[in-house]
C-alpha cells in the first residue's frame, strides 16, 4: 500500500469490515485518554503542579473518563446496528467482547486507584511514577483484550508485563520487594522469548498472523495431513505449546507459577490485588480470543485441534487448581496464601476455556440449551461472570490486607487473631470475600463457579475426560474450604492477644466504606445475577 492509498484510507473509507484510521482512533479513545493522563501526570511533576493538585486525581479522572467512554461505546453497540470492525488495519478488533473487557479493566483501574489513595501507597513523591505505570499496564491489558493479530498479542502482553515488573518492586527500600521484581522479570522475559518463538513458528507455517485467518489457513494446510508423524503437524503442536507457555506464565498456571507467590509476597498488597485480577482477566480475554479463532467452526481438522487443545487445557486446569489449593493450605503469610488462591482460581477459570474448546469441537446438537451454537457462549458467560465476581472478592481481600498492614505492619495470618473484636467491619467483609472465594451461596462466587461447572458438565457429553475435570473442580472446592475458613476463623473466632497491635477503624470512615462497597458488590452479584449475566452473554456472543 503506497502512501497515497494509506492517506486515502486514513481520511475516507472503510475497507470491508475494516475501519479507517480516523475511525480507529475514535474507537481507540479510551486508551488515548489514559495515555494523555499519563503524559499529564509526568508533565505536572515537571512544572510542580503536583504540589497543588495531587497526582492521583489525574489518574482517577483519566480512568473514569475512559470508563465512561467505554460505556458509551457499549451503549452505541447496544442501540444501533453497529457491527464489529477491525481497527488499525486489522491489528485489533472492536466488538462487544473487547468492549466488555475494556470496560472491566478501566472500572477495575478506578477501584485500584481509589484503594491506593486510601492506603497511601505510593507517597506523593512516587505517585506520578506509580500511576503512570498503573495506567500503562492497563493500556497494555486493554490491547490484549482487543488483539486481533499475533503481533498485537505479543505487544499487548509485553506492554502489560513491563510496568507490572516495576510495580512489583515498587517498595524500593525492601529487599523482598526487589527480589520479587527480579524473579518476575527473569521469568517473564524467558516466557516471552519462548512465546515469541512459538508465534513465529505458527506464523511461518500458516502464513498469516491475523486471528481471523488462522482457522481457514489451518484447514487448508492440514486438510490432507493427519497424525503426529507429519512434521508440519508436529511443528504446529510445538508452536502451540510454546505459545501456551507464555499464557501459562501470565495466568500463573502450573508449572509456570513459581513467580507468583514470591511476587505477591514481595509486592505491596495493592499491586498484588491489581495483578491478580487485571492481568488474569486480560490474559483470559486473549486466550479465549486466540483459541476460539484457532478452533474456528470446529469442522474437519479443526475439530481434532480444538478437542486436543481443550483436553490439554483441562489437564493443566486440574493440576493448577489442585496444586494451588494444596500449597495455599500451609501458608502463614496472607499474601502468599492469596497468591496460591489466585493460582487455584486461574485453574477454575481455565476449566471454562477447556469446556468451551471441547464443546466447540463438535457440531452435533447438545442438550440443555437446545442447540450447539449456544454452548460456547454459555461457557464464556460463566468465565466472564466469574471474572467480574473475582474482581470484587479478590480486590476486597487484598484491600483488607493492605488496610490492616497500614496499622499493624504485619501480613501474617496469625496476627489477624480476633480482629473481629476491634474492627468488625473488616472481619465481616473479609469473611464475605473468603466465603465467596470458596463459592458458598448466596455470594457471587457461587454463581461464577456454578456457571463454569455447568459448562464443564455440558462438555462431558463430548468427552469423558471432562468428568475428571468436573470431579477435580468439586473436590478442590472442598479442599479450598480449609484455608479460606482458617482466615475467617482466625479473624472472627480467636481472641485478640493482649500484646497485639490494636487496629481501629470507624465504620463510617472512607476505607471502611470502600471495603463495604466492594464486599457488598460480592453479595449483590450473588442475589441479582440476571443483568450482569446478560451483559456477559451478550459479550460472549461476539466471538461466535
Amino acid at each position: 500500500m503506497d502512501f497515497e492509498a494509506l492517506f486515502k484510507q486514513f481520511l475516507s473509507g472503510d475497507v470491508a469490515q475494516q475501519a479507517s484510521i480516523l475511525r480507529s482512533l475514535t474507537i481507540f479513545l479510551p486508551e488515548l485518554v489514559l495515555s494523555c493522563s499519563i503524559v499529564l501526570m509526568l508533565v505536572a511533576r515537571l512544572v510542580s503542579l503536583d504540589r497543588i493538585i495531587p497526582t492521583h486525581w489525574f489518574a482517577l479522572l483519566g480512568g473514569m473518563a475512559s470508563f465512561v467512554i467505554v460505556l458509551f461505546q457499549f451503549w452505541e453497540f447496544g442501540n444501533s446496528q453497529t457491527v464489529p470492525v477491525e481497527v488499525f488495519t486489522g491489528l485489533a478488533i472492536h466488538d462487544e467482547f473487547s468492549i466488555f473487557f475494556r470496560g472491566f479493566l478501566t472500572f477495575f483501574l478506578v477501584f485500584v486507584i481509589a484503594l491506593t489513595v486510601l492506603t497511601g501507597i505510593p507517597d506523593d513523591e512516587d505517585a506520578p511514577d506509580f500511576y503512570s505505570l498503573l495506567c500503562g499496564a492497563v493500556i497494555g491489558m486493554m490491547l490484549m483484550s482487543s488483539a486481533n493479530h499475533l503481533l498485537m498479542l505479543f505487544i499487548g502482553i509485553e506492554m502489560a508485563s513491563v510496568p507490572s515488573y516495576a510495580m512489583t518492586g515498587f517498595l524500593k527500600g525492601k529487599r523482598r520487594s526487589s527480589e520479587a521484581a527480579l524473579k518476575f522479570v527473569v521469568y517473564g522475559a524467558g516466557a516471552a522469548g519462548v512465546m515469541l518463538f512459538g508465534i513465529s513458528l505458527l506464523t511461518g507455517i500458516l502464513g498469516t498472523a491475523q486471528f481471523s485467518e488462522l482457522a481457514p489457513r489451518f484447514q487448508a494446510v492440514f486438510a490432507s495431513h493427519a497424525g503426529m508423524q507429519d512434521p508440519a503437524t508436529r511443528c504446529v503442536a510445538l508452536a502451540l505449546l510454546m505459545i501456551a507457555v507464555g499464557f501459562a506464565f501470565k495466568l500463573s498456571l502450573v508449572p509456570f507459577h513459581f513467580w507468583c507467590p514470591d511476587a505477591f509476597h514481595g509486592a505491596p498488597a495493592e499491586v498484588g490485588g491489581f495483578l491478580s485480577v487485571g492481568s488474569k482477566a486480560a490474559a483470559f480475554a486473549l486466550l479465549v480470543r486466540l483459541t476460539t479463532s484457532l478452533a474456528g467452526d470446529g469442522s474437519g481438522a479443526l475439530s481434532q485441534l480444538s478437542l486436543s487443545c481443550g483436553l490439554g487445557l483441562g489437564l493443566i486446569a486440574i493440576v493448577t487448581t489442585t496444586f494451588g489449593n494444596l500449597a495455599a493450605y500451609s501458608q502463614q503469610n496472607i499474601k502468599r496464601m492469596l497468591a496460591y488462591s489466585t493460582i487455584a482460581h486461574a485453574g477454575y477459570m481455565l476449566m471454562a476455556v477447556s469446556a468451551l474448546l471441547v464443546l466447540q469441537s463438535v457440531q452435533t446438537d447438545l442438550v440443555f440449551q437446545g442447540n450447539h451454537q449456544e454452548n460456547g457462549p454459555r461457557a464464556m458467560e460463566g468465565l466472564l461472570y466469574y471474572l467480574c465476581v473475582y474482581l470484587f472478592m479478590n480486590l476486597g481481600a487484598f484491600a483488607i490486607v493492605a488496610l490492616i498492614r497500614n496499622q499493624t505492619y504485619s501480613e501474617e495470618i496469625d496476627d489477624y487473631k480476633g480482629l473481629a473484636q476491634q474492627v468488625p467491619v473488616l472481619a465481616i467483609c473479609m469473611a464475605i470475600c473468603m466465603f465467596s472465594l470458596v463459592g458458598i451461596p448466596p455470594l457471587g462466587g457461587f454463581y461464577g463457579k456454578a456457571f463454569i461447572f455447568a459448562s464443564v458438565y455440558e462438555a462431558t457429553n463430548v468427552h469423558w475426560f471432562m468428568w475428571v475435570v468436573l470431579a477435580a473442580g468439586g473436590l478442590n472446592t472442598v479442599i479450598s474450604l480449609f484455608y479460606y475458613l482458617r482466615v475467617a476463623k482466625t479473624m472472627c473466632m480467636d481472641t485478640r492477644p493482649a500484646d497485639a497491635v490494636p487496629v481501629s477503624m470507624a465504620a463510617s470512615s472512607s476505607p471502611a466504606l470502600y471495603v463495604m462497597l466492594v464486599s457488598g458488590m460480592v453479595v449483590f452479584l450473588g442475589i441479582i445475577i440476571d443483568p450482569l449475566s446478560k451483559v456477559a452473554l451478550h459479550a460472549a456472543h461476539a466471538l461466535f
Partner: protein
Amino acid sequence: MPSLLVIMIFLPAIAAVALLLLDPQATAVRARWVALLATVATFLVSWGVAAQFLALPQVSETARGPVHPQLVQRHTWLDLSQAGPHSPGVKLEFFLGLDGISLSLVLLTTILTISSVLVSWTAIKDRAAQFYACLLILETGLIGVFCSFDILLFYVFFEFTLIPLFFLVGIWGGPLRRYAAGKFFVYTLAGSLITLLGLVSLVVTTVQANPGLTTPFSIPDLANTLAEHPLTPTVQFTLFLMIAAGFMVKVPLFPFHTWLPLAHVEAPTAGSVLLAGVLLKLGTYGFLRMLLPMLPDACLHTGLPLIGAMASIGIIYGSFCALSQNDIKKLVAYSSVAHLGFCMLGLFALNIEGISGGVLQMINHGLSTGALFCIVGMFYERYHTRQLNELGGLATKLPLMGVAMVFTSFASIGLPGLNGFVGEFLCLAGMFRAGDGQGVIFSALGAMGVVLGAWYLLGVVQHAFFGPVHLPAEHHGPGHEPIADLNAREVAALAPLLGLCLILGLFPQPLLDLIRPDVEAVAKLYGNVRATNPNAFMHASLNNHASQKNLPSVALGSEVRP
C-alpha cells in the same frame, strides 16, 4: 407491599442486619430484647401465613401434581433463555410457596427460634449482638429452605445456613469449637456439592427428554413432568445416589453421622437446639422434596433397601452409642441419630402411613430433642458439668426441671399419649408393610431402637435426676446467684415445646390433616410404580386393605381437611 410469606422469610435477616449495622456494640441486654422481639414477630407472621394457607380452598386431587405449593410467589431470577429463539425458556426463579409439609416445618422453626433466644438469655454475654444476629440470619435461611420451590433457590438457602451456624458453633461453642465447626462445614459442603451436581443432572436429563418443559428448575413443574414421563431406572439410580449424598450427610444416616455428635456437643445451647431441631430436618425434607416425588423407581428399588438398612443400623448403632455416653449432651446428640433413623424409615416406607409418620417424626424430634438440649443447657449453666457421674438427684434440688426432664424424656421415648409415640408408631407401621418382607426386618430392628431409647433416656432420668443427691460443689465466685429452680424465662422457653408435645400426642389429627394431601400425592406415585409389578401390587393392596382396618383413625383420618 410484599406478601406475608416474603415478610416472614426476610424479617429475621432484616432485624439481624439492623442489629449489626445500627448498634454493633449493643449490650447483651438490648441485643437479646431485639432478638426476642424479632423472633416473636416472625412467629406471629408465620401464624398469619398459616391462617392464610388454611383459608385457601382445598385443591382437588386431580388438579394437583406430586408437589403443589400454594401462596405462590414467582419472579424470574435469571433468564437463561435470552440467547435465541432456539433455546427453551429455561429460567431460574424466586419461587416461594408453601404446602402443608413445609408450613408445619416453618412453624416448628419459628417456635424453636424463640426458645433458643430465651435459653441464650444469660448464657451469652460475649459479643451478644453478633450472636443474635447469627441466630436470626440462620432463621431466615431455615425458613427460606422450606419455602423455596425452585431447585437452585432451595440449594442456595440450604447451603447458606452453613455460614451462620459455622460462626455460632465456632465462636460461642465449647472447648473444641473450632475443630467442630470446621469438620461440620467440610462434611456438609462436600456432601452437598455432590447433591448440587445431581440436581443439575436431574434438570438437564429431564429437559433433554422433555424439550417442552420451560421451567425445569421449578420443583412442582419438574415433578409433574417426571410423574408423566419417568426417567429410565438406570438414570434414576445414578441420580438418586448423587442427590442423596448431601442429604445423607445432613440427616445424618449411619456411616455419615460422625460430624454430628461433635458439632452438637460443642455448639452453644441455642445452636444445638436449632441444629437438632431444624437443621437435620433439612436433610429429611430434601429427601421428601427432591427424591420421593422425582425418582420413584429409584426410591422404591434402591432407596427402600439402602436407606432402610442405613436407617435401621443407625437406630441401633445410635442407641448403643447413646447408652455408653457419660456426657449427657453427647447422649442426646446420639439419640438424634437414632430418631432421625425413624424418620427415614417412615419416609422410605413410601406409603401414606410411613410418609405421614416421617413428617410427624420430624416435628416431634424437633420439639422433644430441642427441649432436651434446652434442659441440658440449663443445668450446665447452673453446675458447669454435663457428666452423668457427677450429677445425681437433680430433681430434689430443681423439682421443676425434674418435671420437665421426665416429661421430655417420655415424649422422646415415645410413650403413648405423647407425640413421639404417634410418629414412631406410624413410621414403623408404614415400614412394616413396605418392600416385600424386608420392611418387616427394618421395622423390627427399628422397634428394638424404641426399647433402647427408653433404656438410655430413663437411665439419665434415674441417674441424674432421681438418684441419691450427688451434685458438684457450688464453687461459684462472689456475685453469682445461688442455684435456683427454673425461672419464668426458662419456663417460657420450655413450656411451648412441652405443651406441643402433649397436644400432638393427644390430637395428632389436625397436623395429619394438614400434611395429608401432600403426603397422599407423593404416595400415589408409588401406587402407580408398584402397579407395574403385579405381585407387588397384590401384596400392597392386600396390606392396604388390612391396614385400613387397623389404622383408620390415625393415619387416614377424616377425609376432608377442616
